Structure formats: C-alpha cells, structure tokens
C-alpha cells in the first residue's frame, strides 16, 4: 500500500473513531449531576451484603470474577517479568557495590517511616471492606514500604529481611487462594465466588462475608508479587550492574 493510501486509511479511521467518541461522550450524564444508575444499584447491593465500603463490595463481591482475572493478570505479568529478568549465563553476581553515603536525615526519616508504612499497609488491607483501600492498595503499600530499608539502610539490610523464596510462595498461595475460595461458593451455593459467609453487621470488623478474606488473600498476593518483581529488578541493577564492562572484553577461559 502506498504512503498516500495509508494516510487516507488512517484519516478515515481517525474520523470514524472521532465521530463515535464524540457521540458517546455527548450521551454521557453531565459532570457532577445526580444521575447515577450504576451507583443506585451497586450501593444498595453493597449495604445488603454488609459492606460499608461499596467500592470493595463491587470489586470483591459483585464483580469478584473480574478481580480474579485481574489478579491472574498481575500473577502472569510478574512471572513474565521475572523470566525476562533472570541473569543471563555471562552475568555473574558481583555482590552489591558499596553504597554511597546516606544522609542522616534520610536515614532517620526512612527508619521512622518504615514501621509506619507497614502498619498503614496492614490497616489498609484488613479494613478494606470498611474504609477506602483493600488488598491491592494495601499490598502495594506493604511491598514498596519494605523497600524503605534500601533507601534508609543498605541493600544487605533489605536482602536479609526479604526472603524472596518465601514471597514467591506467598504469591502463588495468594493467586490459588482466591480461586479456591471461589470454588467454595459453588460447593455451598449456586455459583462461583458467591459470598457464602454470614454478612454480619454493617461497619463491624467481621462483616461483608468473604470480602475481608478475599482482601487479605489479594493483599498477600500483591505484596508478594511486587516484592518478587522488585527483587529481580534489584538483582539486575545492584548485583549485576557492573557486568557490561567485563563482558565487552572477555578473556579466554574467564567465562563460565
């Protein structure tokens, strides 16, 4: 196809998308209006299932299957990235390069924020059905919070307190746990991922049936997944970072 024909085709496509998008946008309820058909159905459904946080109820109860697939997407992308980031045969671990000086205020702030962030992470996971947050958010907070150890201390400190093998298991258990809890829904009632536990009292710690359990499972999965992913990035950037120079001048018999 010639360049002109391609441009015509592109123009035609752009006009088509533009017209459809404009028509769709014109049909949207206006910004800030009181017309919310989805909310009017979702919020009563959340309250009926004892979930004070309607968003978590939608994510883990009303649309639980979507969330299962999302979790599997995260699981798959972590596996893919880890497979890509594995050290190649030429690369050898050199051990972390000596750290630059960490400023004292940075160190202080890091050590104060580390436990604070971890507590906030656990709080966000365990209260996901009551207040804003949930397994996804809390999991990422927990995983990134742990890396304050690297910011404030050293790579060795992080490495000691982060057994990667354990978190690999955690990720798998988290992904499997969600799917298995879904099967429990089939066994006790009609459908996959049915909220089959007692709904409890709205606003109580133990309420909303399976939602807090799924939150905790997803929290474990996301935190573990992010930690494993960042660990592989750290391996590449910190442990194998100086390899390039030595690869460029390979000595006979030096490479394994």
């Amino acid at each position: 196809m010639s360049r002109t024909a391609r441009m015509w085709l592109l123009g035609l496509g752009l006009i088509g998308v533009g017209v459809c998008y404009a028509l769709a946008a014109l049909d949207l309820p206006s910004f800030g209006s009181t017309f919310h058909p989805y909310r009017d159905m979702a919020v009563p459904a959340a309250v009926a299932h004892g979930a004070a946080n309607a968003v978590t109820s939608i994510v883990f109860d009303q649309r639980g299957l979507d969330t299962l697939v999302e979790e599997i997407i995260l699981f798959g992308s972590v596996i893919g990235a880890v497979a890509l980031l594995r050290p190649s045969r030429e690369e050898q671990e050199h051990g972390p390069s000596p750290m630059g000086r960490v400023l004292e205020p940075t160190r202080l702030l890091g050590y104060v924020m580390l436990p604070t962030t971890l507590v906030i992470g656990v709080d966000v996971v365990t209260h996901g059905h009551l207040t804003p947050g949930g397994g996804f958010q809390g999991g990422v907070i927990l995983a990134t919070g742990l890396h304050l150890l690297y910011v404030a201390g050293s790579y060795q400190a992080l490495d000691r307190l982060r057994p990667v093998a354990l978190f690999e298991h955690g990720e798998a258990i988290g992904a499997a746990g969600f799917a298995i809890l879904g099967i429990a829904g089939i066994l006790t009632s009609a459908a996959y991922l049915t909220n089959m536990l007692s709904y409890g009292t709205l606003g109580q710690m133990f309420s909303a049936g399976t939602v807090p359990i799924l939150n905790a499972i997803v929290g474990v999965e996301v935190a573990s997944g992010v930690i494993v992913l960042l660990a592989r990035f750290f391996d590449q950037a910190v442990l194998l970072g100086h390899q390039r120079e030595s690869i460029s001048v390979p000595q006979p018999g030096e490479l394994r």
Partner: protein
Amino acid sequence: MMTAVVGLALTLVLFAGVAVVLTSDPRRQAVTLSLFGLSLTVLFIVLQAPDVALSQLAVGTAFVPLMVLLAVSKIRGGR
C-alpha cells in the same frame, strides 16, 4: 467552589503531565513521573474517589518510579 478546586487539580495534572513529557533525562523523568502521580492522587481525592487515589498513590508515586530508576540504572551499567 468545588468546580474551582476540580479545575485547579486538573490544571495541576496538566502541568505535571507536560513536565514529564518535557523531561529528557529518564532518571529525572522518574521524579517528574512521581510528581505527576501525586497530582493525579490529588485529583482523585478531589473527585471523591479515595480508593482509586490510594492505588494511584502507591503505584504511580512509589512503585513505578522505583522500577524506572532500577531499569535505568541497569541499562547504564551500574551507578
């Protein structure tokens, strides 16, 4: 009043987004990207979506810039 706050937050997002695009050094871009994430967090809070704001804060402001920094550090062959 609320419209003004939403407008202000949107303007903040606009400027932060432009700043990310105009930053040419990937290492500096990680910092502007983090600020862009923070301005989106502010927008989501203003639009009363705290759940999304929390995700944005954790992923966009901390996790992604950290991954960018580590990747850039690897590509440049160590610090």
